[in-house]
């Protein structure tokens, strides 16, 4: 892990490596975290809607964490 941990700006072409390093050793699914991080930026810049993002990862999050409490849940979304 990078040390010290402090706010900094990472060139976008180095971001994935840095994100992977942040998740290194985490007791949860690293690949899921990386994919969600990538798509969360796509949501921010309008390439993906909140609803699409929520639906895309809902099942995986339930499997990994046993819950999905993200605020991206669209109205009327069936949690089951």
């Amino acid at each position, binding site marked *: 892990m990078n040390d010290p941990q*402090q*706010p900094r*700006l990472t060139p976008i072409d180095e971001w994935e490596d*840095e994100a992977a390093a942040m998740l290194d050793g985490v007791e949860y699914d690293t690949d899921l975290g990386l994919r969600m991080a990538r798509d969360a930026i796509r949501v921010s810049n*309008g390439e993906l809607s909140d609803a699409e993002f929520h639906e895309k990862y809902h099942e995986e999050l339930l499997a990994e*964490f046993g819950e999905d409490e993200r605020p991206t849940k669209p109205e009327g979304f069936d949690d089951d």
Partner: protein
Amino acid sequence: MTNYGLVIDQERCIGCQACAVSCKQENNVPMGQFWNRVLTEGGDKIDTPSGGYPEDGGSGSLDMEYQPTACQHCENAPCVKVCPVNATYTRDDGIVEIDYDKCIGCRYCMAACPYNARVFNWDEPEQMPEEGTGDVAARPQGVVEKCTFCSHRVDEGLDPACVVNCPADARIFGDLDDEGSTVSKYINEYETDQLLEDRGTNPKTHYLSGEMSPGRPQTSDKMESELDDVSPWSDGAEDVPSDADGSDSSDSGGSPHSIEGDAAPHVPAVGSGGDD
């Protein structure tokens, strides 16, 4: 609705790290961690400066570029969208916060933050002194933490510690949704940028460069009530950017963190009692 934001005048910033230190003290930030720091360009590390002093009193000058960086409190915050347990959330006033009781330490938010603004408590946090500092309880091992815009102070009508303690008055905090607030006036009056705008996160921290602003001419309401003097180097109204239409903004309701009409900029007098 209130929507808090920050303007940082990079022409005024002198890279003194007072914001970083005061943040660390106010928020009881553990040893080895920073929520707020000042980056520089050209040094061996990202926060070490390069360059030199002018030689022999010549015409040269030391020109440093400082990039104060912390949580940007994004409107479209990727960190909020990836948190599976909703520990990271956006308050009604726009401040992005973490519920440390909910945080499970998955670090997905850290991976999603384009500004690397979050830190993880790998070990049991150590404070110096051991009992901690400031007005915020220590966070436990295994959670992610970050800048809160000093929400505990904002809730009391005070500006964040980094704003109050900036000796260059380079930080201006207030309500972005209030056209009469100083932050709104500065964003309208001066050229400002947001970090990594291409990522669409719409940070609530705006960086002012190219032309030096008057800086932070107004403290929060509570501090101002404790002041009985105005800045000795200010003669008043011309220090404050005028409204775009030239109208008086005294109808803004006198909200915290805003300039009242033609009110003269205030600077806390030494020994005025402080705000803590």
